[in-house]
Structures are given as structure tokens and as C-alpha cells.
């Protein structure tokens, strides 16, 4: 922000928001999600000309399913590592705050209140809600991906190892597996490439993208604007200085911009193809 205010300090202060592990996790999710979407959509819309062209370009169906499974495996490992890490820190190291409270991604009553207040604010009916570390849409993002990985992952592995899974469940469930695998994937693709992109990056406050997930750092100004309750809480606890960070390196900012731009372009291209092909099905 360039507007001079009375409290402005000469230097811009940076604070940590995401750990290196969280940034890596997000990076792995970006790559594998795009990879899975790129190799999965041609299967979901196998009748479309672009699907056949894309399949041929990467070496046919054999190559497509290979990269699909490879990305799925990497994502699964990342997902498992994340869950194990959370449970370990929470249960063994007694960081119960990961499972409940403002630092956790578990929804609370405040999220519903915030959502309601936010909607009222949209309609000029009330004041803008004061968000904590995670706003309700952050938590929706997290659980949408979490739920999506569970549903798509389980149904995917069930189809991959169909005869094995058929020992524990009826084979007719494999029909349902394909259906929900494809539909949940469409939901994921259309959610990430519109809602997540807008809520986190493209909305006017963050336009064109929020680099925090790439640098792990935010300015004090951003913090106060976006997560005022968290800022106030940590300030009153005197923990602000623990989170002080250096200004993000220029290469890191540029790296984030490049990765983000590629993800945007791929996402919008796939969103377009998905919407067009989905409408054509009717």
C-alpha cells in the first residue's frame, strides 16, 4: 500500500505465514494436480477431438495412464506424509492447536458466523468480518482438497487394483467408483480453477496473485488487512517478533510469479475445455 498513514514505519516488515514444508506441499499439489487433470480430463472426455490429440501428443493412452498413476502416487505420498505429520505433531508432541482452534484448519462456529457476516458485507448490510489465521474459504479450500483426495484417491486405487478391491466390495461398486472419480474430478477442476483462483489470487485485494504461498511471507500491512484477529492475538501474546522474516528474495518472488502464471494458464485452458465438453454432453 502506498497510502501514507500516521503509523507507517519507514521499512516494510515481513512476517512468516507458511513454513517451508507447507510451501513444498502446496508446490507438490500444484504439480500433481495439474498433471492429474491434464491426464485425466482426456479420459473423462475421451470422445472429444482435443482428448485424442492430447493423448497422441504424449504417446497415446499408455503414456497418459502412466503419468496419471505416477502423479497419483506422488500426491498420495504427499497426502500421507501431511496427515502423518499433523497427527504426529498433534498427538505425540501435544500440539493440540493443530486439531482445534485458530491455528487449525478444522472449521469452528466462527467460520459460519464469518461466512454469514461476509455475505451481509457483500450486500452492504454490515461490517466486514475480522478473520483469524484461516478464513472460512481457506478452510473450505483445505477440506475440499482433503475430501477430493479421499474420494478420488480411493475410487482411483479401487479401479487400478480392481480384482483386489473386489475381494472386499461388490464389483458393481466399481461402476460407482468410475462415476464419482470422474464427477469429483470435475468438481475439483472447476473448483480450483475458478473458486480457489479467485478467492486466493484473483480477487481485487490480491490481484493478480498472492505470492505468500511461494515466499511463505507476508507484509505486516497484508497481515493486518487479511487476518486482523490473528495479528491482534499474537501481538497481545507478544509473539509477533518470533515471526519476523526477511524480505523475500527477488528470485523467489519471480519464481512464484512464473509458477503461478503457468498454473493459471493451464488451469484456464483446462477449465475452458472442461466446460465446453461438459455442456456438449447434454
Amino acid at each position, binding site marked *: 500500500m502506498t497510502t501514507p498513514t500516521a503509523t507507517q514505519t519507514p521499512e516494510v516488515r515481513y512476517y512468516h505465514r507458511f513454513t517451508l514444508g507447507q510451501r513444498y506441499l502446496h508446490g507438490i499439489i500444484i504439480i500433481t494436480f495439474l498433471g492429474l487433470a491434464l491426464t485425466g480430463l482426456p479420459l473423462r472426455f*475421451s470422445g472429444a477431438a482435443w482428448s485424442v490429440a492430447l493423448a497422441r501428443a504424449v504417446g497415446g493412452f499408455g503414456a497418459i495412464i502412466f503419468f496419471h498413476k505416477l502423479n497419483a502416487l506422488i500426491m498420495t505420498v504427499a497426502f500421507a506424509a501431511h496427515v502423518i505429520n499433523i497427527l504426529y505433531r498433534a498427538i505425540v508432541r501435544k500440539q493440540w492447536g493443530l486439531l482445534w482452534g485458530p491455528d487449525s484448519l478444522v472449521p469452528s462456529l466462527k467460520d459460519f458466523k464469518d461466512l454469514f457476516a461476509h455475505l451481509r458485507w457483500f450486500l452492504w448490510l454490515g461490517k466486514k468480518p475480522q478473520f483469524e489465521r484461516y478464513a472460512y474459504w481457506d478452510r473450505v479450500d483445505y477440506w475440499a482438497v482433503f475430501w477430493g483426495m479421499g474420494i478420488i484417491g480411493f475410487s482411483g486405487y479401487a479401479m487400478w487394483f480392481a480384482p483386489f478391491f473386489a475381494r472386499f466390495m461388490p464389483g458393481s461398486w466399481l461402476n460407482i467408483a468410475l462415476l464419482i472419480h470422474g464427477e469429483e474430478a470435475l468438481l475439483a477442476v472447476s473448483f480450483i480453477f475458478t473458486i480457489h483462483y479467485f478467492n486466493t489470487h484473483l480477487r481485487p485485494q490480491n490481484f493478480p496473485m498472492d505470492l505468500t504461498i511461494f515466499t511463505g511471507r507476508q507484509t505486516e500491512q497484508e497481515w493486518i488487512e487479511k487476518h486482523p484477529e490473528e495479528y491482534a492475538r499474537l501481538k497481545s501474546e507478544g509473539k509477533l517478533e518470533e515471526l519476523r522474516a526477511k524480505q523475500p528474495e527477488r528470485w523467489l518472488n519471480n519464481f512464484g510469479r512464473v509458477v503461478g502464471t503457468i498454473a493459471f494458464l493451464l488451469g484456464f485452458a483446462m477449465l475452458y475445455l472442461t466446460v465446453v465438453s461438459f455442456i456438449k454432453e447434454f
Partner: protein
Amino acid sequence: MKEILFRSSIVFAALALFELAAPALHAAPAPNCLECHSDKGGPQFKGSIHGSMACTDCHTDIKAFPHPDQVAKVNCSTCHAAAVSKLNQSVHAHSSAQPCLSCHGDAHEILPATDPKSAVYALNIPRTCGNCHGDKKFAAQHNITEVYSQYMDSIHGFALSRDGLLVAATCAACHGSHEIRKHTDPASRVYRGNVADTCGSCHSGIEAVYQKGIHGQLVKAGDTSAPVCSDCHTAHQISNVQSTAWQVKTTATCGGCHTEEMATYRDTFHSQVSALGYQQVARCWDCHGEHDILPASDPNSKISDANLVATCGRCHAGANASFVTYQPHADPHDGRRFPLLHASAIFMNLLLAGVIGFFLLHALLWLLRSRGEAGHERRTL
């Protein structure tokens, strides 16, 4: 006076000589014919199947010399009555050219069909037919498909032209020779009802299997809409069944009649994979069989309850009774037959519409409100 007498005696002698020589004209290729027609009686004619015959055996209207300028067309049916009678009922009956010679070649050089030089020797038949049927203009004029090149590139054409197999199917092997009839004529060898028998004259084992299958039974019962050999294999190009192009095309061929099954197959992973040109995936015949397709109710059917585990197990190692309850033709719209799948489809659609609808509205309102936010400034990245 003496002079006149001498001259008339020469004329008389000449006439007498001619009369004496006349019977020889009927007996053998008299040197007299060859004096004018020297090109017709050479070794080519001597070596032909008609080499021992006299000119007038065929040119029966020539009784005397000099013969009229216009002589009648030779009627082959004098000797070859059966062949000509068949020809007269064939598609070539009204051929403007002399139909016998179009195929058998020069009348004075006709060789037995067993002679490798004969125009109707097995290995030469396609070229002979191709004289007319290999011509695009001819095909267009007669409104028929240009089949020569398709045949020559087929497995039959290669067997003949490249490998020199006498048993390879020639044009005549399927269409007949003198008796060629339109495929719409029930007496034609290539009429739908007769195709299996025609192909079966070589592919006997496959025909026996086909005749036991549901399609063979339907055709036998007179339902010519049921598929015959050529519907899948094509008639002239006999596509390679290993090729992806053929497998994709023929899946659609089955779907041409079995529309509902095709629509439900489209929803499955099998179809999604096959549409992308992957070969090792279940297409119609992988489950239902190729020539021996039978309804699931038939115990011999590949998809009968007793055989399903083995059929699925061909690709899916470890398939068991539970596995084969998978529905390869499930229809999510059919709540009566597939209640759980139907319910899942409704749930997923509601979830998709609900989540995306709510958050798109949320985003739109947020965008509008942000634009109207007092003192809002664009954040610089």
C-alpha cells in the same frame, strides 16, 4: 476368234479350280483365309485352346469366298451354352463390348484357365477384372465403388500378388465368374443371406462357428439385417483386425444396431480407453466373442453366469465372482436397474452444482463489493 476361245478357257479353268478347292475352306484353317488374315493363324492361335479348330467352326456364316465385308459376330454359345446362359443373367449381360472377350482376351489366343498366361488364370483374375473395375471413371459411370485398389491392398490381394497363392480369394472366388449378380439379388453369391456361405467356402471353420452364433442364426432365419462377414471385415479391403483403426471402427459398427449398449459402453472406462486409441482394452468382441456371439441366457455364451469369471479373467487376472458383478453397460440414468449408481450420480451432480453455484455467486458478490469498497486501491504485486 482363237483369241476369245483362249481367254474364256482360262476363266473356265480358274473357276473350275476354285470350285475344286472350295471344300477345303470348311475343313481346316485353309491357307486361303490366312492369305488375307495372316495375323490370325500364327503360333498364338495354334497354341490356343481353339488351335485345332477351323476358322469357320466359329465364323459359321462364312460359306464362300469372297465373303461379305460384314461378317456376323461369333456366337460362343454354340459350344459354351451353359456359360453364356449364365452370363446372360449376370450383370455383364448388357455389356456393350463382347462380354466373353472382355475377360478371356483375344478370341484367337484364348488359353485354358489353368494356363498361367490365361487372362482368367487365378493369379491374373484381379488384373483382368481391374481392366474395367480399376478405372475410377468407369466406377463413377456405373455408380459402383472403386474396389480394385482396395482388393489389391487386402490380405487376399497380397496373398495373391505377393505370395502367388492359388487358394487366395480372387474376384471370381466371391462373385463367381459367368454368373456375377448384383449383391441385392438373392441368387447372388454376395447377397447378404449368402455371404457366410461364400466366405465359408474357404473359411469353413469360422463359418461353422458363426452359423452357431446368434447373428448366423438370424441370417439363416431370413433376417438379413443381422451382421454378415463383410459388415465387420469389409468386402474388398478385408481390414487387418489387429489394427487400431479397424477396432475403433468396428466397435461403432456393433453400436450401429446395439445403440443402447453402445451408449452405456461409452460411459465406461473400457470405452474411454478405447476411444483414445488404446488397443489392449475390452471392446465388444472381447467379452461377447467374435463369431460365436450368444445371448447371456445361453450357457455357452461367453457372458453367461458360468463363463463370466473366465471371460473377465482373460484381462483382469484374479477376477472373482464379486468382481464380475461389475456392470460393463451400467446406465446411471436408470434408477430401476442401477439404484445405487443412479443415487450416486444424483448426489454427485447436486454436490457439483451446489458447491460451484454457491461459490461462484459468493465470488461474484465479493467482486462487486470489492469494486465498491471505499478507498480501495489496486494492490501492486
